[in-house]
């Protein structure tokens, strides 16, 4: 598979950057001519991953950095990598369980469930004390031209 376009973005882990990050990725993804629903799915998944960096990786205390790379691929798909250098996840399987949350309170524990439901694939790699990388892909369905 060939990469046809790419961008990288590094952001401080501030909650005000959640909307900025998803707006950037959705603007980039429009090059694949997605539907409104596909764009919304991508925005939501990115918002979950970026929020996880802020809430979990840096625990809303350390102003760490969030590293985002997005690739457009020649099979009309987008691949998004969201990386942090935060605390890491000791038990990835448990973290990905729907409704599991390590912080409780107002977090629903659905971040990974949403990413998995709205994207085609979600991979998580993490090293405790080093950080976490989420890699997500989504294929954009080809549009049928009205002119045939």
């Amino acid at each position, binding site marked *: 598979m060939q990469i046809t376009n790419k961008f990288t973005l590094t952001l401080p882990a501030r*909650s*005000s950057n*959640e*909307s900025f990050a*998803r707006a950037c990725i959705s603007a980039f993804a429009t090059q694949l001519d997605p539907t409104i*629903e596909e764009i*919304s*799915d991508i*925005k*939501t998944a990115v*918002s*979950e991953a970026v*929020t996880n960096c*802020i*809430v979990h990786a840096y625990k809303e205390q350390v102003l760490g950095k969030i590293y985002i790379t997005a690739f457009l691929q020649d099979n009309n798909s987008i691949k998004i990598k969201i990386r942090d250098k935060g605390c890491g996840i000791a038990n990835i399987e448990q973290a990905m369980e729907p409704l599991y949350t390590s912080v409780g*309170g*107002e*977090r*629903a524990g*659905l*971040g990974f*469930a*949403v990413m998995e*439901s709205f994207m085609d694939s979600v991979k998580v790699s993490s090293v405790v004390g080093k950080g976490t990388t989420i890699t997500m892909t989504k294929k954009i369905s080809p549009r049928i031209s009205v002119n045939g």
Partner: protein
Amino acid sequence: MSVQINVTGEVVTAYLGGELDHHTAKEMREAIDSAVELNMPTLLILDFKDVTFMDSSGIGLVMGRYRNLLKTGAELHIMGAPPQIYKMLKLAGIERLAKLESR
């Protein structure tokens, strides 16, 4: 992000607007909770008609309000959810906690 509160008898309606994420949820939550504390409604309606984006922080907001209402036995209704937000609410099984109506 905006919240407009309307009180009619024992019903509090919160009209939510704009983007609902981890960054904006706190302010929305505080506005809703203070209206509920002040008015002690038997029914809380969350109107999502003007919400343009919502991630799982919105689910956390709904679940948190549901838990608070359990203490007084008040009901929770969710109205006007646009398609993408309805999809998210269904994914979380919110219809088991609250009456759920799409736009």
